């Protein structure tokens, strides 16, 4: 399990690099570390290993998820250049925490034992609480961190309780052990069901599914934008990888019990996420609700667990992560330039849609990157997002859950409404947008994300050989 070890070592190394006078080395060093980890991750390709006394199981699917998480982290870090100019910022700590949090994400993806799942969730979450509050002088950032921490700690408790109940029912913490018990069909203990539900609540909270989503808008809005991008992609991907592994390995036997519950949660998540997003005036809050709605689309695949689900979740998380990061990347630049990120005295952020007015005329590249990512999030063909939705809808059709599909389709139409508000603002509204100076490296990152989105949109089969 080299990625875990490497990430830990690199994280500590970064903290020491922070003692150096020049902060300039931190960003390239972090990127290098991430690339090395990403390469090392694939060493076990096509083999299945159990690590650390059967605590972790690494297979191709886990490696693909780890690669998505590391790749997202790479893109986010690559877009985080502004820390250098900010005297208040502590980039060494931030990058160190990011690497440590990835250790948690890897554990969540590759767990074989519920204890590992718990440890992974905690490592990732604690890191997130810190990053959310990293803007120390900002009230909103503090509030967000506190809120996230309190609610997160509470649900972690519920999750742990659930694991204890599962142990009580099955006498095992391993996925295989629980799976074996759940598959036995008769005489299942009630504790199993209660335990599963509590465990699900904990994980659904992390991926911000309704009705456990209330923290999301405030936290996403209050956290510094770069960490919002990190949170909304890495945490979500890791959370869904964990959910998928849990449900597909251990609880297939009791599918009939949990699928209706999950399907209802899916429908509620889709409806709340999309309808509320349509009413937002702040771009960042809109993205927060949109991330709730995407949790809903991802849940479709789980509620209709089948042969297609694996592929659907991998593809969707990849498409969603790339598009989200590039959207936040553009927002970062726009906000920096307009200085709209300065919070007014009442603590109200002003990252409105208006900030994008007329952007495309002066900055065609930024406009284009943003447009492609919005189209992808909206699920318009020729972008990766379309195929993500397509795979998700296919799973539901395969299971015959047409009613869920109708909800999803209606909500997709709502989604088009709010994503297009950004495009309209950029292209059709007049604004005092000035040319934004974009560093070449930044430009390449945005271009790479855009090309990836379009490339997967034209040739979705590219990923197929991977798992």
């Amino acid at each position, binding site marked *: 399990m080299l990625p875990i070890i490497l990430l830990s070592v690199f994280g500590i190394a970064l903290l020491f690099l922070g003692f150096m006078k020049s902060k300039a080395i931190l960003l390239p060093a972090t990127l290098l570390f991430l690339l090395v980890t990403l390469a090392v991750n694939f060493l076990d390709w096509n083999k299945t290993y159990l690590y650390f006394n059967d605590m972790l199981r690494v297979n191709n699917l886990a490696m693909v998820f780890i690669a998505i998480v590391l790749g997202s982290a790479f893109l986010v870090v690559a877009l985080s250049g502004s820390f250098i100019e900010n005297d208040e910022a502590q980039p060494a700590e931030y990058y160190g925490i990011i690497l440590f949090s990835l250790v948690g994400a890897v554990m969540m993806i590759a767990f074989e034992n519920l204890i590992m799942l718990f440890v992974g969730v905690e490592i990732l979450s604690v890191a997130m609480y810190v990053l959310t509050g990293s803007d120390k002088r900002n009230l909103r950032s503090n509030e967000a961190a506190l809120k996230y921490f309190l609610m997160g700690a509470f649900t972690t408790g519920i999750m742990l309780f659930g694991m204890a109940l599962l142990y009580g029912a099955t006498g095992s913490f391993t996925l295989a052990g629980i799976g074996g018990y759940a598959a036995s069909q008769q005489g299942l203990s009630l504790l199993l069901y209660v335990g599963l539900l509590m465990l699900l609540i904990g994980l659904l909270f992390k991926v911000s599914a309704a009705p456990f989503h209330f923290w999301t808008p405030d936290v996403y809005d209050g956290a510094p934008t770069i960490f919002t991008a990190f949170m909304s992609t890495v945490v979500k991907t890791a959370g869904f990888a964990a959910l998928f592994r849990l449900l597909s390995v251990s609880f297939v036997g009791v599918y009939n019990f949990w699928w209706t519950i999950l399907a209802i949660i899916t429908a509620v998540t889709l409806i709340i996420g999309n309808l509320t997003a349509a009413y937002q005036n702040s771009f960042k809050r809109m993205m927060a609700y949109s991330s709730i709605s995407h949790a809903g689309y991802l849940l479709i695949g789980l509620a209709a667990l089948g042969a297609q689900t694996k592929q659907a979740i991998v593809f969707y998380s990849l498409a969603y992560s790339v598009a989200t990061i590039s959207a936040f990347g553009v927002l970062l630049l726009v906000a920096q330039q307009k200085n709209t990120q300065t919070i007014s005295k009442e603590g109200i952020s002003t990252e409105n849609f208006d900030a994008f007015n007329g952007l495309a005329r002066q900055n065609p590249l930024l406009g284009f990157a943003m447009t492609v990512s919005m189209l992808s999030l909206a699920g318009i*063909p020729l972008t990766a997002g379309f195929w993500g939705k397509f795979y998700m809808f296919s799973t539901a059709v395969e299971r015959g859950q047409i009613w869920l599909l109708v909800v999803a389709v209606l909500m997709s139409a709502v989604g088009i409404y709010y994503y297009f508000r950004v495009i309209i603002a950029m292209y*059709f509204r007049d604004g005092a947008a000035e040319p934004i100076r974009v560093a070449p490296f930044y430009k390449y990152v945005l271009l790479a994300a855009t090309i990836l989105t379009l490339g997967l949109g034209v040739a979705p089969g590219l990923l197929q050989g991977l798992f």
Partner: protein
Amino acid sequence: MLTLFLILFPAVAATLIFFFGGERAKQGALLAALAELACAGYAFFSFKPDASSQFAFDYPWIGSLGIRLSAGIDGISVLLVLLTGLLVPFIVLSTFNRTYKQPATFYALMLFMQAALMGVFTARDGFLFYLFFEAALIPIYFLAAMWGGDNRIPVTFKFFVYTIFGSLFMLVALVYLYYQTPPTAVAAHSSAIADFYKLNLTPQAENWIFWAFFIAFAIKMPVFPFHTWQPDTYVESPTPATMLLAGIMLKMGVYGLIRFILPIVPLGVETWGKTAIILSVIGIIYGAIIAIRQRDMKRLIAYSSFSHVGLMAAGVFSQTETGMQGALIQMLAHGINVVGMFFVADVIFSRTNTRQLDQLGGITQSTPKLTVYFMIMLLGSVALPLTNGFVGEFLLLHGVYTYNHYLGLAAGFTIIFGAVYMLRMFQKSMFGPTTSRTESFTDLTNSESWVFIPLVVMVFWIGIYPHTFLKVTESAVANLMKYIGTTAVSMK
């Protein structure tokens, strides 16, 4: 392979123009569109009039799912391919006296649109069709919303959300159909349209799939009561975009009816076809009556187009061979006429800065050329014998009449009403005393004439010798009727 070229060439040309077009974008776009027309013309004339799919290509796309990049031209596509190839160069030419800001983007979007439309009309894979169907929406949305009138942003937004909402239902239906197909050699399912034709669906499934498809296509055409986006969008869009919308894009809906609804869900058509025809006929009459009351030329033509397309839909749902043939040839004819009419409105607007009929008049006095071309286009639109409109409308009405006499009679009003609103428009704008705006009206320039001349040739060619066009669709339509026929027989 020719099909692949027809789809890719405009897209490549568009990309080149977008990056390197600069001030020469206009000429580059015209050149590319003419080359595309040559290819489309070649495809049309070397098309063997049978039911097969020709000039086809077929590559794996998402291998393990059995989804393929597969397209070709058959008897149902061929006229629409010709139409798409034919209209775009003249739409480009019609802009030669105008300057649009950011010309490179403008013309690149037009060619992208053409590529997507070619894809829609030739796709042989259900998901490829859907992809192009949606992809066509993006360039036209930007064309309309960037270069349109004052009220363009909310209007085009409504158009976009409305149409994409409809096509999402189609996506659900396509995915459902896909999962019903039997395993093939390479994958568990197949998304080839030909495999959809072979499915035996339950009546309940056919009914909801009928509606899923019908709503998608009805919004696109549009059929009453899904038309509310249309007049505003047509009026607010810049004229070239309106021409693309009315001339070609609307045909995507009618094409979809013929390609998907009739052969895939014949039982659904059996059950709901009458409802669909009644809606279409309501649209015919309703659109015509509103058109009579219009004062804005562009809006009048928009409603006339709404009325005409209702007849095409009714003809298709009559499930008769003549109705289907009529719809196919009428799509070609209507595309030509409506582009001509919108261009007349644009010419008048460019000289007088108004499209209000009561501010116009007396234009004939100084414009022999415009008068003649306008008249010919108008006669084509009102379906005078020996013009293109007559052939299509006659076949369509015959089809609807065979299906149900009363509905045929009601649909027949289209010819009378059509004559009323078209002649009224001609009279108000061209005859009478000149007004302050039309006093110094100059006749057509050379480039403007060259837009009309090929359109006029087509009006008479289709009108006098429709056999050229009917013969290529004949066997494909007969083949299609088999799918409808077999199920109808097995029902009994």
